[in-house]
């Protein structure tokens, strides 16, 4: 028997049409085009000569390119450290925001403010605060006699990485704690009542009730943050511009430089494709574990 769409279903598809067209034009086409270009040697400087097919050569080049290897290792370390810190602090903030106490409105607002500031602006703000000449952080530390010489936050290769992580954690922890808070509020209160009658300590309650029930929400929150952090661009661009000596050059920053500034369209596309593949891989891993967890619950 032939399946016939009823009017309602048809209507549904028609409503979907505009977003499908937009997706095709602004996501699917550019992605396919980028992947396609990643197999070519194609440069703005030699545009008149057109593009030549080089197969996987660009990919081979990437894994021999010290700038790429530095960028990817910085990005990976940055992602792992930043997201870990964001998760731990995020859970703490969420627990505080979930407590009934006077002044809760003010606490919640205060926690959320960093998230509301545009990244470029918070990047510049941190840049001022880190400054060795007039930075408030060094000023306070020196007044408190903790340090003698100003800390070279942004001019030391290692510290610049630390500084970037601090700025990112400050900026995105609120987002994390907001998601976690929504998870906390779905946990039935009677579980806590029952367990406290059975003599469970606060600590036991946290590890045996709160954390397991929070896992699905936590996985989603971590997934979002990992993918977003992996593609970090704006914060680094405003704070260090990849310096000193490429110590904080993220994968996206390097990709954008290669593609737009150096005019190397082929190789830039390759870098963009690699970023996309890694992001996809991360999402798949999370989705798999997420599905398993949801089924268990």
């Amino acid at each position, binding site marked *: 028997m032939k399946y016939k769409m009823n009017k309602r279903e048809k209507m549904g598809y028609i409503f979907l049409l505009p977003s499908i067209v937009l997706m095709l034009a602004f996501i699917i086409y550019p992605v396919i085009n980028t992947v396609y270009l990643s197999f070519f040697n194609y440069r*703005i*400087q*030699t*545009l*008149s000569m057109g593009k030549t097919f080089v197969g996987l050569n660009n990919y081979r080049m990437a894994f021999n390119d010290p*700038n790429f290897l530095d960028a990817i290792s910085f990005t990976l370390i940055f992602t792992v450290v930043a997201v870990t810190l964001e998760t731990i602090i995020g859970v703490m903030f969420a627990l505080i925001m979930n407590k009934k106490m006077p002044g809760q409105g003010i606490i919640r607002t205060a926690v959320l403010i960093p998230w509301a500031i545009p990244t470029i602006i918070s990047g510049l703000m941190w840049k001022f605060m880190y*400054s*060795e*000449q*007039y930075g408030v952080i060094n000023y306070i530390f020196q007044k408190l006699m903790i340090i003698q*010489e*100003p800390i*070279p936050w*942004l*001019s*030391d*290769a290692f510290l610049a990485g630390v500084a970037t992580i601090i700025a990112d954690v400050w900026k995105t922890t609120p987002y994390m704690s907001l998601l976690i808070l929504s998870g906390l509020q779905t946990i039935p209160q009677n579980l806590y009542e029952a367990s406290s009658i059975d003599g469970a300590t606060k600590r036991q309650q946290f590890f045996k009730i709160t954390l397991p029930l929070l896992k699905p929400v936590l996985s989603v929150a971590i997934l979002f943050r990992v993918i977003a952090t992996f593609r970090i661009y704006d914060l680094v661009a405003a704070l*260090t*511009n*990849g*310096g*000193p*000596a*490429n*110590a904080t050059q993220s994968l996206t920053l390097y990709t*954008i*430089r290669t593609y*737009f*500034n*150096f*005019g*190397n369209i082929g190789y830039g596309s390759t870098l963009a494709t690699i970023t996309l593949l890694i992001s996809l891989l991360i999402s798949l891993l999370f989705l798999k574990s997420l599905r398993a967890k949801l089924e268990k619950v």
Partner: protein
Amino acid sequence: MKKLGIFLLFIMLVTGLFGQQVVLNYYYNAIDRSIIELFEAQNPDIKINLVEMPENTNQKLQLIQTILFAKDSSMDLFDADVTWAPIFSSAGWVAPLSKHFSDIELDAYLPGPLNSVTYNDEIWGIPYRTDAGILYYRKDLLEKYNKPVPETWEELVETSKYIMVREPGMKGLSGSWAQFEGLTCNLMEIVWSYGGEVLDENGKVIINSKETLEALKMMDDMISKHRIMPDGIVNFYSGDARAVFFAGNSVFLRDWPTGWLNSQNPSVSKIVGKVGISDLPKGDPMGRSYSTLGGWQVMVSEYSKNKEAAIRFAKFRAGLQAQKIGAVNLSHIPALKSLYSDLDVLAKMPFIQDMYPAFYSAYPRPKSPYYAEISNILQTETQMMFVGRKTPERALRDMEFQIKMLLGQF
């Protein structure tokens, strides 16, 4: 509905009335509006629509490159940095202009800026403003300690150390040494002054020489051995470099002439009236001083639908009248020779008369369609040396290797 109809009718009428007018979209860097008004008054058939570009030069390049790559005809003209002519002309994105100029017209421009828009024997833009790195110094401090304006980089180091011991909190030289185009400008001045160079006339990579090495060592020593640079210098952009000097915390500053007006503005500067300006020091006492050529040119897009009108505006924008307005109102250093003896300009910027030789002989950065990438290699490797991840020798070898790779010279 009726109201909307009337409104639409009105719009059509208005656009119909001015239908003969050509609208040119001009992506500009910095301009005094009166230049536009003057041009539109003289050319009623052309209207200029100004589109502002981002602040950062790299982002300007990204924007212009994206528009031209898409063959977008909505941009008719744009301002270009001195290093862009080889990139755009080899991509075939900008209109050649030499047939619109007579030899006399071209001769009115300074040779440096004109050279920067020339590539493969064709002219791809018209300079409306030039720039050159210069040395700012504290007149009062040099007088107090009876020291002359340093002739060489070594002398600059000695003078700095001498004054730093006697003035607590004082540093020697400030400059823009962060990882961005400003570092390439600062670096090349020192490299040239020691006799080094990146590419020879035929485009062959000749950077790995003992002269370049000497220059790199000098910069490295300024930071870690002599410690005359302010803390955090490897993250200094132009604004940071000026801030230290304007606050009275360094004896010398390497900057562009645009810093002059603010150095004399009491609301941002503590050293009003205490500033002197000079050529940059030399490497070799017998050699010459080198300043990096900067400045801006106006270019016409190959994809513009109104090229004739665009070229007419470009000639005006880089012409005598417009450059004078720019010099007087925005302290833009003129790219036309005759303005260096113009009394109105000299009243605003008295130093440009003495500094004319420096502007006249300002030196271009390596000319290559791959310039942006070469510059990035220079910046990164120099910074590797600054932060101690590489020795000067190693940084130089790696520069040579990467630039040769890029240009296919193996």
